[in-house]
């Protein structure tokens, strides 16, 4: 078996046994990428091979020793291009590592220096908004891999990465994971440090793992989770060993299925796949019931006000003064600003910045931003009520499987609505995981989403693992590339 097709846990075991070396792993991945990148385009500025950052001093020994981790282009890696796939950060190399990167390094992981593709500044659900062009879904290269962490998901799905980091603000880890048939976890807000994650929406963003299976997800989460004094919003709660809960019985777990999610607009094959998964859960001894999250219909509008408002402010620092792109020959400071940002930002970025600026502006703040914050409370309360009686909520990750490239680009609203199932978890700050739960007749993966209360990642992982083991017991289907 090729090293590139193994999971991180499997590779760690082989490394431990001395049967392989770290160099061999990277080499295998690199060769794989060399063969598949022109079809998948998961990586940004791929130059024919994958390299990892040189170890600073003696290589650390830890649970991830020697295992390469691929990183989304919006997570800062010191002295490596971190461009958020935007022209305005063209060539930008941060002088510091994101906290998650420092943690991975101290656990011995090898950081792949070539970053994975994404929608510019994480604005998007298809990776088509990347200034480098879109990535392709390894299961059907005419289709999008999802977004905004489409590059990370595609790389993991096509075995061009062992595992990867993505970021999730409204579904950007889970939706591409579901489109690409891999596992994607968005941790509880505050579980993982945001220091070094280029901010999109500060009150919603989280970094999380995109992996081939649930065990790898737990492994990566172990490494990146934890309090960071540099991030005021990170929470000081101990990090358990997330792999310890894997294999625990799920008999008696109470699963809620939100009725508002199973309505019109959902692809019949997605619904079928979800219903089959529920049967699987029942076979495992869990109890499934219908629940209600009554304010679901407001999730997308609330999100697009709060997220764009915060983004409009977070992106104000991109002005050409201290780093990044600066428009040439600006006559004066005012022109320098407007042209730098006008030329440096892509269409979706401009759309969201203007929308967000509008929502905060004088005369509209109360009707838009303030109102959205209040409805956010209602959405949060919906989940609190449900989790008072249920261990978790299960729903589709996305109403459809991966759509065709270009299909939704003409209508931004249509694109926004595809986030309908993932957005609420970000608004409520709760953890959520997407696991593959089947395929459409056309061979496209379908993902199932499990959500639970704050800091209940173990509940998610336990259930996801049990499902995974039961539903496809070690026989992972692979895309034909």
């Amino acid at each position: 078996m090729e090293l590139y097709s193994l999971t991180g846990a499997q590779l760690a075991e082989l490394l431990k046994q001395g049967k392989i070396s770290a160099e061999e792993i990277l080499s295998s991945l690199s060769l794989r990428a060399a063969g598949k990148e022109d079809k998948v385009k998961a990586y940004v500025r791929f130059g024919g091979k994958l390299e990892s950052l040189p170890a600073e001093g003696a290589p650390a020994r830890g649970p991830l020793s020697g295992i390469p981790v691929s990183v989304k282009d919006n997570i800062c890696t010191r002295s490596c291009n971190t461009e958020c796939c935007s022209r305005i950060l063209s060539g930008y190399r941060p002088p510091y590592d994101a906290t998650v990167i420092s943690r991975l390094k101290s656990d011995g992981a090898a950081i792949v220096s070539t970053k994975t593709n994404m929608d510019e500044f994480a604005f998007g659900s298809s990776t088509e908004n990347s200034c480098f062009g879109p990535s392709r879904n390894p299961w059907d290269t005419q289709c999008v891999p999802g977004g905004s962490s489409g590059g990370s998901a595609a790389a993991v799905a096509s075995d061009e990465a062992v595992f990867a980091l993505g970021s999730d603000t409204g579904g950007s880890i889970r939706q591409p994971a579901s489109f690409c048939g891999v596992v994607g976890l968005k941790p509880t807000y505050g579980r993982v440090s945001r220091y070094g994650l280029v901010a999109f929406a500060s009150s919603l963003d989280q970094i999380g793992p995109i992996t081939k299976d649930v065990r790898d997800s737990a492994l990566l989460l172990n490494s990146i989770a934890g309090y960071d004094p540099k991030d005021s919003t990170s929470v000081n709660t101990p990090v358990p060993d997330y792999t310890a809960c894997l294999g625990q019985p799920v008999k008696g777990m109470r699963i809620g299925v939100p009725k508002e999610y199973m309505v019109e607009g959902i692809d019949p094959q997605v619904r079928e796949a979800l219903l089959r998964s529920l049967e699987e859960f029942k076979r495992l001894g869990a109890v499934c019931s219908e629940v209600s999250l009554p304010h679901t219909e407001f999730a997308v509008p609330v999100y697009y006000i709060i997220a764009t408002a915060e983004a409009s402010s977070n992106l104000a620092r991109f002005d050409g003064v201290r780093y990044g792109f600066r428009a040439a020959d600006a006559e004066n400071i005012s022109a320098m600003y407007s042209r730098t940002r006008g030329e440096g930002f892509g269409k979706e970025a401009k759309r969201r910045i203007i929308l967000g600026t509008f929502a905060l502006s004088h005369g509209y703040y109360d009707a838009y931003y303030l109102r959205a914050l209040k409805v956010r409370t209602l959405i949060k309360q919906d989940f609190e009520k449900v989790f008072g009686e249920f261990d978790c909520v299960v729903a589709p990750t996305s109403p459809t499987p991966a759509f065709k490239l270009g299909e939704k680009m003409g209508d931004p609203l249509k694109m926004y609505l595809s986030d309908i199932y993932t957005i609420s978890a970000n608004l409520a700050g709760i953890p959520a995981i997407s696991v593959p739960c089947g395929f459409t007749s056309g061979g496209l993966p379908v993902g199932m989403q499990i959500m639970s209360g704050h800091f209940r990642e173990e509940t998610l992982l336990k259930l996801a693992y049990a499902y995974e083991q039961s539903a496809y017991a070690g026989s992972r289907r692979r895309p034909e590339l």
Partner: protein
Amino acid sequence: MEYEAVIGLEVHVQLNTNTKAFCACRAEFGVEPNTNICPVCLGLPGALPVLNKVVLSHALKVGLALGCSIQNRTKFDRKNYFYPDLPKGYQISQFDLPVALAGEVRIDTPAGEKCVRVKRVHMEEDAGKLMHDAEGSLVDLNRAGVPLLEIVTEPDMNTPDEAYAYLTKLKSVIEYLDVSDCDMEKGSLRCDANVSLRPKGESRLGTKAELKNMNSFKAVKDALLYEIGRQAEILDGGGKVAQETRLWDARQAKTFSMRSKEEAHDYRYFPDPDLTLFLITDEEIGEARAGIPELPQQKAARFMSEFGISAYDAGILTADKRDAAFAEECIKVFPSGDKKPVVNYLIGPLLAEANSRGCGLSGLKLSPERLLELVSLVQKNVISNLVSKTVLKEMIDRQATADEIVKSRNLAQISDTSALDGIITRVLAENVKSVQDFRSGKENAVMFLVGQVMRMSAGKANPKVVQELLKRRLADA
């Protein structure tokens, strides 16, 4: 038409913390540009703010010292605007839940004590520095992120003098708390003023102009005076005052409209999601209150009651904390119960010396013991008051004792009659006209003669003794 000026002041105080408000860079001055910067204050992508604990504790102290009510719930908001010295494109400030509200500063006016209400005190970060030359503009971010407190008054002042008095009082309180060095020259205290006019007796406010770019308390006073005149002229001519920002030009002694400012800013304030809420318990407020030292007003009152000095004198001595400490020590060490001699000496010659050297009383590096030695020499008539001033100067310059100086320079007052007789004889001989003036009834002529004796004795003659001797001699002849 008689107008009343209505003035409100907005003061920014730079806190003297070791590090910046939201990152661990040093908040120090006088270093090379862009030395004290990090991803956070440089506004690099991915960087996040964390509040410096001392900023909040300083804010509590200032709020309490100004009699404000400290809010149990306070948060930070983003004030969004674009400017090259603002790295994130927003300033972290406080909008609707500032740390302190509703305080006051009492000032002395000719009409008695007046209360200037403090509307609010809030925390925020400073911007960087922008410098301009022919080629373009340069950005230095050393100052970006340095903590500031913004103190805003209600429009309770009515004259430039009142504004000046407020600033002086405010500065003195803040210095006492040791949270800032309050130096307008260094920029650690900045003041913007809002001023409008209304007909005397009218309760509605007129249109206000905002004045900026005043670099000293005097400049604030001068700018307000000018602006009040300017607005009065407009109103007298039947015109309307424009609501605008005007810059004070100290050289031309005028205010100028900032016409270059485009449309009014829409700051789009919203709660900063990168920072938590700050909950301040009543216990914490109590602890902060207990940690506040005796403030100038209280100290002055105590000086008055303990040392029996006047309100005016007490005010002068307590204006600066270190000076007050020095003065208090001197007063305490002074042996007699009547403190007037030492107090007068502190307020008179010592203060004059301090002012001429541009430092405070404590900056003279004079020990209370040495000062007392000097004062006692004067009291014992060993030297005259006039000579003591020269001695004082030398004491400070050479860090020597009064006794050493008097002996080495032979400054001891001459009170010995026989010694003075000779000089008096010569003076009488050389100033015949004055002698005649005195004899013809001009009593004051003797003072001229005393002056001549003082001159001839290089100031060493004891003027009282001289006066007596002269009168006797003149009566004799």
